[in-house]
């Protein structure tokens, strides 16, 4: 059903029979996809939004300007390898980079919970400044709201980023072509496991460090090498699994991925086995998928490896079945790699 037809009518109770928003609606999986398609896109419907990429390429007077937005709500605020401040900068910088845009300016907007210690805010803000400097962006305007105790979680941050495309490539899903190689920029799953490891009842004695990092310099290196990049996408909520499914759908092509080629650190792998989690569904915050012509993939991998030695080619694009992602298992068989369902719950029994 085309929800755009029903303006002004009552809500057609979308999303199955679930009258309530649940955590799964924000988990990067199918429920979230449904929510976005059936509510937000249906209501806001316009050509730029329908472009479907993480950021919007705007037709301003001259050149191509890119804008992207994200709110950050991580618990806890500080985790091994980063905090909500680093995340808020890198997350938006990375969304710009994924559009092939050089990050220029950020806005930052805070929702603070009454009772938050200013010392805590200060530490977060310092992290933001450091991350912004490292990424070469300016935070150019902002906003602050305070909500009553029990209606926030210390700090929520929205950052909106503006960047520019100063090359002639269109880096976006429709450019993906049969025969392309799929690369990943480093080992996956560290951010999600770093955060999960801070939770009561799910903690390990050893710590996993988040992979949170800015990606523009890596993308810039790819661009400067003159590579014909077809598409880039950072693997955040929903992990590599979600990104591959989204891109295969948007490109209307099949992706074939080899599980054993996906780089995973031993500590992440062990923790995932113990908690019964599929590492392909675990969030990263500093890793991306790059898709480009096969004949350029060796050079691309070389450039990626210069930044992260664990970067790897993990699969290729075919035209067999639009939107399908297959996984070659460690024992050599093939299966479907489906979109994750929603909230990542430890599977124990």
């Amino acid at each position, binding site marked *: 059903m085309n929800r755009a037809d029903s303006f002004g009518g009552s809500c057609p109770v979308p999303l199955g029979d679930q009258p*309530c928003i649940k955590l799964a609606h924000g988990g990067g999986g199918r429920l979230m996809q449904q929510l976005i398609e059936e509510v937000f896109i249906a209501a806001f419907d316009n050509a730029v939004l329908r472009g479907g990429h993480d950021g919007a390429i705007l037709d301003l007077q001259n050149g191509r300007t890119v804008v992207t937005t994200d709110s950050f709500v991580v618990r806890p605020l500080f985790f091994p390898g980063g905090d909500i401040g680093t995340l808020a900068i890198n997350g938006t910088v990375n969304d710009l980079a994924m559009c092939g845009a050089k990050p220029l300016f950020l806005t930052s907007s805070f929702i603070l919970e009454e009772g938050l210690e200013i010392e805590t805010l200060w530490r977060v803000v310092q992290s933001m400044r450091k991350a912004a400097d490292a990424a070469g962006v300016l935070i150019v305007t902002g906003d602050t709201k305070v909500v009553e105790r029990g209606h926030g979680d210390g700090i929520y941050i929205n950052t909106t980023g503006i960047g520019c495309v100063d090359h002639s490539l269109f880096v976006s899903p429709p450019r993906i072509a049969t025969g392309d190689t799929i690369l990943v920029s480093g080992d996956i799953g560290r951010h999600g496991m770093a955060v999960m490891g801070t939770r009561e009842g799910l903690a390990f004695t050893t710590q996993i460090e988040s992979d949170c990092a800015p990606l523009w310099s890596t993308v810039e290196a790819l661009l400067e090498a003159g590579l014909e990049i077809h598409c880039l996408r950072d693997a955040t909520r929903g992990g590599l699994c979600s990104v591959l499914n989204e891109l295969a759908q948007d490109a209307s092509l099949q992706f074939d991925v080899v599980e054993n080629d996906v780089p995973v650190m031993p500590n992440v792998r062990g923790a995932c086995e113990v908690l019964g989690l599929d590492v392909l569904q675990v969030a990263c915050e500093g890793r991306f998928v790059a898709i480009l012509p096969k004949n350029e993939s060796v050079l691309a991998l070389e450039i990626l490896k210069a930044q992260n030695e664990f970067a790897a080619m993990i699969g290729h694009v075919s035209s067999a079945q639009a939107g399908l992602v297959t996984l070659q298992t460690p*024992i050599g068989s093939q299966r479907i790699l489906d979109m994750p369902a929603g909230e990542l719950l430890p599977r124990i*029994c």
Partner: protein
Amino acid sequence: MKYIDEYRDPQSTRKYAEAIAQLVTRPWTIMEVCGGQTHSIVRFGIQDLLPDEIELVHGPGCPVCVTPVDMVDKAIEIASYSDVIFCSFGDMMRVPGSKSDLTRVRARGGDLRAVYTPLDAVKIAAANPQKQVVFFAVGFETTAPANAMAVYLAKKQGLKNFSVLVSHVLVPPAMKAILSSPDNTVQGFLAAGHVCTVMGTHAYTSLADTYHVPIVVTGFEPLDILQGIYMCVRQLEDGSATVENQYERAVQDDGNTQAQDLIEKVFRVIPRKWRGIGTIPESGWALSDEYSSFDAQQRFKLAEAATEEHTECLSGKVLQGLKKPADCPAFGVTCTPENPLGATMVSGEGACAAYYRYRKERVV
């Protein structure tokens, strides 16, 4: 990872697959009892490697799938009380009761916690003396040592605010129920390796004899499952019907006697209702008299209610090997992992969910 990686080796698995193909002369229907085995089979695409003659059917060995609707409803009721912290294994939280599930209770404000071990629920109780902390103690024999230990420690620590909602089930009576059904099609079993780790293998001898069915105690890695199938097919082709142990590295014939001692102290055998199947005699555990003060059902004075199960859902038949998920008209249509009708669509080890996530029918 030792004891994992070598059992996922493609050469070794292919060798076993080829050996099975050489051995088999006619169709055989083999049930892997345990949901964890089902999970491995679909996750590693094992069916792909087998000859067409071998049909694997998925057994009732997933506690998430067999916990009856009325027990889920009780969990929902308790979790809704404002002074309760309700702890559960993660995947139990999405199992549908008759009207709701635990994640919806959380969305309406309930304090739900996914824990990795019941021992953490005991810690939460000690740390929150002003709250009632309840653990949803589901599971087969494998989970009983952990659940028994939680109750034992709570008593030892004198915790007055800890209790367990017990829905423990036992594997051998369920296998007996499947075998004694007039519709049964199962000719051989891969018995649940981790269950046997705790309880040993003796309980299966009389089943193998009585029903003349080969039973191979099997592990969970691809190589384990292929070797288990190989051993089972060998017996089937030979016409023999004994209990064999593929999972020797983990399973002793006597099981874990220390664990059995505590289980005997904390639990007693009772008849138990299985979701989609019905009541099976002597197929479950409840708290023993000595530990009955930790029973959440008594503490919260829950009334017994006859709850209806979803009529459309074939999960009971799926769990008994009488149907495959794809036989269900709801499968993938009105029933999906995001919106499950039956428990077998919820758990990663539930047959319907496993089929849905890794379904090979869509692979060309």
